[in-house]
């Protein structure tokens, strides 16, 4: 007798930290098309306790943070302090190369300037999440 394989639902949580609502709208519009097939996607604003230690499924959580001019160092500190293995993406206009390097050093996987550029991250997100779903890895990248 062939047993049906046990299936587990694959859930990606996409959190958005921003001042207005443009990145939340863009995420809700595009993120579902940027994930591996069969993935259930939750898109919502970042809450205060989302970055606190001890949360579940943070390996399959993506945080999209809008970083204003002059705020890069504050975000570098915030990402460094976050002990959860989330995938970080930064939305910012006019980043300098040193700023980009600082962000990459603490594990930011990509930067985008405008909402229409979000779908460019599809293969990156798909690749990361395929590996995370396959391994259930809780390891923090670059940490």
């Amino acid at each position, binding site marked *: 007798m062939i047993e049906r394989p046990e299936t587990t639902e694959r859930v990606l949580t996409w959190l958005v930290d921003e001042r207005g609502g443009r990145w939340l*709208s*863009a995420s809700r*519009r595009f993120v579902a098309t940027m994930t591996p097939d069969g993935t*259930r*996607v939750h898109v*919502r604003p970042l809450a205060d306790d989302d970055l606190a230690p001890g949360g579940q499924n943070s390996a399959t959580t993506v945080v999209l943070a809008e970083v204003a001019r002059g705020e890069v160092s504050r975000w570098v500190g915030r990402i460094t302090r976050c002990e959860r293995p989330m995938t970080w993406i930064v939305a910012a206009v006019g980043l300098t190369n040193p700023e980009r390097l600082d962000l990459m050093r603490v594990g930011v996987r990509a930067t985008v300037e405008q*909402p*229409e550029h979000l779908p*460019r991250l599809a293969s990156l997100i798909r690749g990361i999440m395929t590996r995370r779903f396959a391994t259930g890895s809780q390891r923090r990248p670059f940490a």
Partner: protein
Amino acid sequence: MPAGSKIRPLARQLDGSSAVVWVTTAHGELLYLSAAAADWLGVDGDSMFRRRCVPAAASDDPLDRLAASLAPPPGLGEVGWLTHRVTPPGDHGQAVSPRQIGFARIGEGADVLIFAVGGDFASPSGTPDEPGTADELADASELRRQLDTWRKAEGVRATVATAGTSAAARRTRGRIRFAASVRCHVGFYGPTGCGGETIASRVHQLARGDEPLAVVDGPLMDAELLEATVGPLIAPLSESQTAVASALVLGLDETPVEAQQRLSELLASFGGRLRLLATAGSQPGELREPFDASGDVEAVPDVTDPADPSSTRTGIRPDLVDALSVFSIRLEPLASRPEDIPLIAAATVDARHAAGEGLGERLSRAALDALVVYPWPGEFVELDAAIRHAVRVARRGVIGAEDLPLAIRSYRPSDPAGASSRPTIPLDDAVRRFERRLIEEAIEAAGGNRAEAARRLGISRAKLIRRLADEPND
């Protein structure tokens, strides 16, 4: 009124120097072009006098297109001083390299003059009054630069629906270039409103602009009407073995079978001399057999069955599919190329503004965001209509989100997880259930008296009884 000193010494001084300078009116009419500017552009300065320096001004004259590229960047009216990298198209027989230009707006009202001066400017823009405007102006300037580059590369081939930097846009432009260089049947497949008709017409114009063309509105055709529509092509094709012609069939997959049959016969009669350009949906079906050996349409049964959506009579005859399979251009839906939307929208704004349809000359970031997020079920046609509306409604140069049509500015995508898990509720069912509940509550409140319940609901007793009879108890 005090008179200024004479202008001639200044003009003489400028013409004797290496300064790249030009001056236009607020409406973009070129008043002055220095000798160095004329040298840079490779033109005779006099031939440019009074031409319109307005982006996307519609003209087939290369000098008009050259003048259009000298337009100031959007937002100059807001800050008074902007810099912009001007990229002349160079299709007037002279290659022109891009150049950094500073634009200054002086004067008030109808007396406004715009001075353009070549130079190496450190500051990208003036000092805007509102915070965030500098980023927006830089954004608009970058969009204009991309548009100028696209116009320069595409020249007369440019169709707004194919603007953009996405892989889909690049592929489509490449295929259009190829289609314009050969003479063969071409199919244009894409969703309704994607601009297939415009692109097909442009391909014809580029490939064989002097060749007779008949445009056929496929879904409205029967065999006789098709015959009458393409009649003007048939006579010369019959009379001369060297004559050629093209038929552009719009909506081939929705064209009735008998009209497709006639089209197929005409293509067979004239061989390659009658060229077929046809638009159809993204995934047109092939009409199902049986066709009898002679292809007699009488032998094709009417398979339309309202209970079976797969049995509809839309599709393309196999022999026409074969003809179009030689070369086809697939037009991607706008929703799958969001990164192209700002460029397409900006090009459309330029065209509408140049046509004098309104004050709007650039899109604010909020407006661009709304356009990017909207799913565009009506494709390019809907986008064009939205921009036309916004350009007309805008009360100043910058088009805000509030100037866009309601459906677009109020669109908010929902959480994908919520959207997929939410049950589907047919509206009619929901309304019926709600009505039923109100009726039951009214009857109960009236102590079972149906006439009183009807009065309380403001309907007749007969109507109330009919409603109760129509609806089974849930």
